[in-house]
């Protein structure tokens, strides 16, 4: 039953990649969406089964075959469904399905072959993502881990004739490789030290070891795994690929670079909660990196002008939140935020996609504005998504973000809490800057700047709102963004954190269940913090309204006054330039001058050519001996015989 879940998208991929060219769009797109729907339904059924079990026994195993057997060391190709992966498969298949439906309309301008290629990649991605979350061992997970990286590369570079898209794809792939390298090392370390790669057996073995206060084997292993996670989940220092990944089609950004793939690192840490809990030093590092990434990406997001880039930095920032939660040991809260974030970030990306679609490829928010009336569905759903991500009370983002901030404060990380709260303010501000600049005010771009619009016969006021398939996905996701949080209402509000309880056994951490039972003093602390973060959200929105609706002049004068800061932020702290100067260029120079012109040309080619010229030179001298005169040959033969005989006779 479990293997059916990834099987459907795989079938969709096989059909679309082989026959897709000849299929009409309705068939190839419909087939891909159906595969996702089927896989969602199967997931729902198995999760329902899982829910029917006793909380401590909620594990479904399915072993397909033994993949590697070498002495005592075996790796099975096995899938395992537990509380954690249940959440993940529902998110991946559910949101994946909606994004497939959305894509059928969004990608409609492509040719049949390209359309099928797009959907085959999308289905392949879903397959690998499901393998990643269902895999019962590191190695199976790694197959999915690499597979989603591949699909990410293929989809970022989907419009590969555009150089920037092809470059962005390569960048994503190369940066991910750096993380994967660490992931492999971590995996090998675990395999050699623990002798198994199965998550449960590793967790059991680690649980028997003492918590490492110094930097030991478990710390190294978890640090390496974490570096892998920073690559996949776009954290400092490997986050640089994600903003560039926005070169891909917008639904891809929604599915891969916001809702699912980039959360794989968070999922992986959750999966190895026991391992990470035994390395508190590394966990601390996770929290600090997460918070730093959240803050940094938030500050960049506030000045960017490309609608998708703002969302991309927002994603990096929210992923930072999740890592912050993981780092302070609140694994449940991190996964909760992962789950709510999947809804509202997918919604926001799809909403931005609808805007871009309506404006025929325009992505610069400075050229937008006043779209509220023309695109009502997009506007309202986008607004809901923004409210949710900003952390306005009673929407999904509020509950999850609040839980993270509470856990951070509760575990004594006051400084990280301040950073988190500041990021929360930034989030609310840049999201509503986006809303106000895109949908409110007057339209700011004249038709003369875009002659191609005239050709299409599109004029002001004739913008078309999202077509049915896109509107469907937007509305469902908007509903999800509102209600998704209610599975984890904190006790302090008289609710019941059922998601926390559901996940607790998956982390095998004893303290988790106790944490959710906050009462009395802690309850009031939680309510206080909740009020603070609500106030922050509302203040952030108000600030955005004041700055970008009321007094645009203040923004302008601020950016003039602090031109240096503004430029640094606009150029993303020059991190790309710094990486280029410190890593890319030195590698290029060493490769070109040292390895290519130095070693390859001089040493390798030199050795080969040298042998060749020695032989040629020798032969050129020796060939003089072949004079063609038979008498000379006979003479040398005669002399030789005389010498040999003479030697034997006179010896």
């Amino acid at each position: 039953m479990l293997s059916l879940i990834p099987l459907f998208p795989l079938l969709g991929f096989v059909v679309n990649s082989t026959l897709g060219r000849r299929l009409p769009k309705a068939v190839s797109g419909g087939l891909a969406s159906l595969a996702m729907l089927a896989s969602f339904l199967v997931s729902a059924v198995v999760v329902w089964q899982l829910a029917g079990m006793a909380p401590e026994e909620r594990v479904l195993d399915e072993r397909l075959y033994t993949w590697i057997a070498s002495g005592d060391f075996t790796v099975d190709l096995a899938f395992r469904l537990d509380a954690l992966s249940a959440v993940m498969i529902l998110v991946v298949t559910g949101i994946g399905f909606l994004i497939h439906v959305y894509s059928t309309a969004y990608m409609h301008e492509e040719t049949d072959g390209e359309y099928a290629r797009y959907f085959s990649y999308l289905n392949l991605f879903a397959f690998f993502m499901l393998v990643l979350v269902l895999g019962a061992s590191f190695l199976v997970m790694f197959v999915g881990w690499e597979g989603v990286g591949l699909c990410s590369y293929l989809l970022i570079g989907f419009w590969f004739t555009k150089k920037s898209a092809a470059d962005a794809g390569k960048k994503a792939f190369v940066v991910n490789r750096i993380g994967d390298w660490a992931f492999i090392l971590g995996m090998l370390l675990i395999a050699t030290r623990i002798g198994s790669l199965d998550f449960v057996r590793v967790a059991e073995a680690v649980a028997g070891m003492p918590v490492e206060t110094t930097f030991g084997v478990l710390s190294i292993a978890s640090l390496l795994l974490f570096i892998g996670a920073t690559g996949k989940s776009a954290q400092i220092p490997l986050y640089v690929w994600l903003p560039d990944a926005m070169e891909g089609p917008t639904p891809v950004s929604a599915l891969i670079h916001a809702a699912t793939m980039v959360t794989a690192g968070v999922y992986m840490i959750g999966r190895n909660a026991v391992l990470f809990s035994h390395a508190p030093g590394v966990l601390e590092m996770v929290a600090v990196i997460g918070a730093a990434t959240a803050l940094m990406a938030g500050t960049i997001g506030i000045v960017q002008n490309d609608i998708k880039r703002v969302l991309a930095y927002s994603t990096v920032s929210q992923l930072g939140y999740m890592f912050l939660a993981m780092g302070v040991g609140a694994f449940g809260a991190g996964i909760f935020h992962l789950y709510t974030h999947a809804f509202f970030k997918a919604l926001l990306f799809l909403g931005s996609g609808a805007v871009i679609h309506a404006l025929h490829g325009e992505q610069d928010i400075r050229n937008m504005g006043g779209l509220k009336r023309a695109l009502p569905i997009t506007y309202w759903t986008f607004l809901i998504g923004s409210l949710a991500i900003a952390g306005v009370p009673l929407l999904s983002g509020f509950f999850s973000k609040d839980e993270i901030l509470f856990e951070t404060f509760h575990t004594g990380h006051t400084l990280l809490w301040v950073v988190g709260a500041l990021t929360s303010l930034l989030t609310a501000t840049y999201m509503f800057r986006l809303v106000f600049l895109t949908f409110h005010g007057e339209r700011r771009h004249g038709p003369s700047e875009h002659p191609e619009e005239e050709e299409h016969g599109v004029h002001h006021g004739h913008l078309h709102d999202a077509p049915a398939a896109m509107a469907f996905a937007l509305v469902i996701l908007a509903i999800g963004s509102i209600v998704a949080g209610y599975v984890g209402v904190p006790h302090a509000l008289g609710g019941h954190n059922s998601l926390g309880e559901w996940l607790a056994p998956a982390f095998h951490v004893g303290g988790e269940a106790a944490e959710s039972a906050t009462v009395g003093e802690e309850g009031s602390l939680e309510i206080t913090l909740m009020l603070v973060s609500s106030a922050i959200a509302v203040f952030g929105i108000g600030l955005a309204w004041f700055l970008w609706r009321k007094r645009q002049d203040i923004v302008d004068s601020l950016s003039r006054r602090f031109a240096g800061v503004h430029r640094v932020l606009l150029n993303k702290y020059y991190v790309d330039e710094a990486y280029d100067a410190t890593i890319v260029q030195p590698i290029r120079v060493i490769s070109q001058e040292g390895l290519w012109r130095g070693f390859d040309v001089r040493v390798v080619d030199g050795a080969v050519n040298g042998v060749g010229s020695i032989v040629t030179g020798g032969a050129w001298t020796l060939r003089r001996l072949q004079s063609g005169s038979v008498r000379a040959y006979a003479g040398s033969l005669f002399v030789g015989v005389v010498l040999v005989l003479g030697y034997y006779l006179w010896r």
Partner: protein
Amino acid sequence: MIPLGHFLILSAILFAIGSAGVFMRRNLITILLSIEIMLNAVNLTFIAFGRHLGRVDGQIIVAFVMTVAAAEAAVGLAIIVALYRHRESLNPEAFTSLKW
């Protein structure tokens, strides 16, 4: 009775004459003749040893060598005729085109 040493010395002298002819003469036919002299020097050695040892093996080999020499002379002369038609010359130095 003539001792074995005399035969061998005569044979060596004949062989030396033959070799000198092969290397020094500038006429292919003369060279062929010189080769015959060398062959007969060897034949003489065989015969001498055969008699000295009282066995017929030497004479049998000489019979073979004479047969082969006759055949070789026929083939050799035929080649020389062909070469002469080709180059209008019997000088071996004219036939050195098979080189580097």
